[in-house]
């Protein structure tokens, strides 16, 4: 009985490789909480899992409300990376990024972060 129980974690660890999970935000550009001097050409978000773009959104907003941006695209070389182009220059201030993504196995996660533009 004890030997059987001891094998369960090993078996689970072995099957963990091909499984998918909740998409966790790992890195962003601009960095979470950072200050940038110039308007970035795009937002870049790296998640821990491949993303389903059809069921995912990333929105940018500032003190005056929503900032036109997009469309959201996946990086063809790495489906964990999403890009959101920013077509216009941003005025000085704090901007909030709200993301809501669905990983390829249908797990949904959401979150937000801010960065500052200070030319």
């Amino acid at each position: 009985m004890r030997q059987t129980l001891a094998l369960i974690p090993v078996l689970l660890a072995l099957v963990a490789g091909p499984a998918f999970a909740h998409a966790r935000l790992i890195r962003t550009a601009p960095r979470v909480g950072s200050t940038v001097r110039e308007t970035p050409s795009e937002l870049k978000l790296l998640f821990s899992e491949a993303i389903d773009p059809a069921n995912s959104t990333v929105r940018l907003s500032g003190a005056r409300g929503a900032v036109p941006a997009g469309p959201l695209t996946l990086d063809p070389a790495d489906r964990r990376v999403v890009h959101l182009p920013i077509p216009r220059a941003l005025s000085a201030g704090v901007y909030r990024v709200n993301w809501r993504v669905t990983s390829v196995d249908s797990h949904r996660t959401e979150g937000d972060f801010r960065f500052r533009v200070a030319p």
Partner: protein
Amino acid sequence: MRNAMRFVLPGVIAAALAIAPVAQAHAIVGNRFFPATIATDDPGVADELSLPVLSSFRTGDVPPLRELDVDGEWTKRLTRDLGVSFGEGWTRLKGPDGQTANGFQNLETTLKYQALTSPAHEAILAAGVSYEWGGSGADRGGAERHSTVIPTLYFGKGAGDLPDSLDWARPFALTGVIGYAIPSRSHEGVERVPDVLSWGVAVEYSLPYLAAHVRDLGLPEFVNQLTPVIEASFERPTNRAQGRRATGTVNPGVIWSGQHFQVGAEATLPINRASGRGAGFVVQIHFFLDDLFPRSLGKPIW
């Protein structure tokens, strides 16, 4: 118990495979991920497996015994917010003369309902009832012969809604639990069996939260997956006891959270001599079954 599991488990797995609702988050509320804590149960309802949970400490007996526990708990969601858990443990007691005794503890089942989930406030409130099946474990391992019912409340609150001026504090979270154990008998032979009030809290500082939602300090990914935690759990008889002194431990430690499992380790520091002698430790490996098996065993049945 094992025979019952042999018949019940295949049915549960078959039902989970046959029915496929949309996968939902486990103990994730808005920006907040509440990791599974060790000494106190976290407030979320999820498909998960804690195995093994290893702990070693010296008991408060005179003279003290060295106790080693190997525990496990499997939780299955019946619906998105309702789950049932099965917990079992094995204990070895070693006396100062080297004599040992060991055996399985009583099976414990818990039905838990996540009643409130507020993503904006990173808050969870849950209620549950546990039942310890008296006599299902071994006397020689210290298992009780009487059964016990334990109604329990669970809560969790993240500090993400603090104002911008307190950004540094937003990764903090507090979870807690309070329960009341009611035994099925007031006496076990000549020994009185009291009702017991138990409570505990966990204070966490989530580095994953710091990196993803507050400020990315450029730390290595491994560090960004750590959550330092201090847990404290206590219990106190409320009747039929010679003394009504509280016992418990304070457990500083850290939890590493990956995509499919987490590993936690804590020191266990007794609050008084009745709670134990010297520092002990506890280590937990905890699997996220909804991430490991998102299309089958990790989904709610209904």
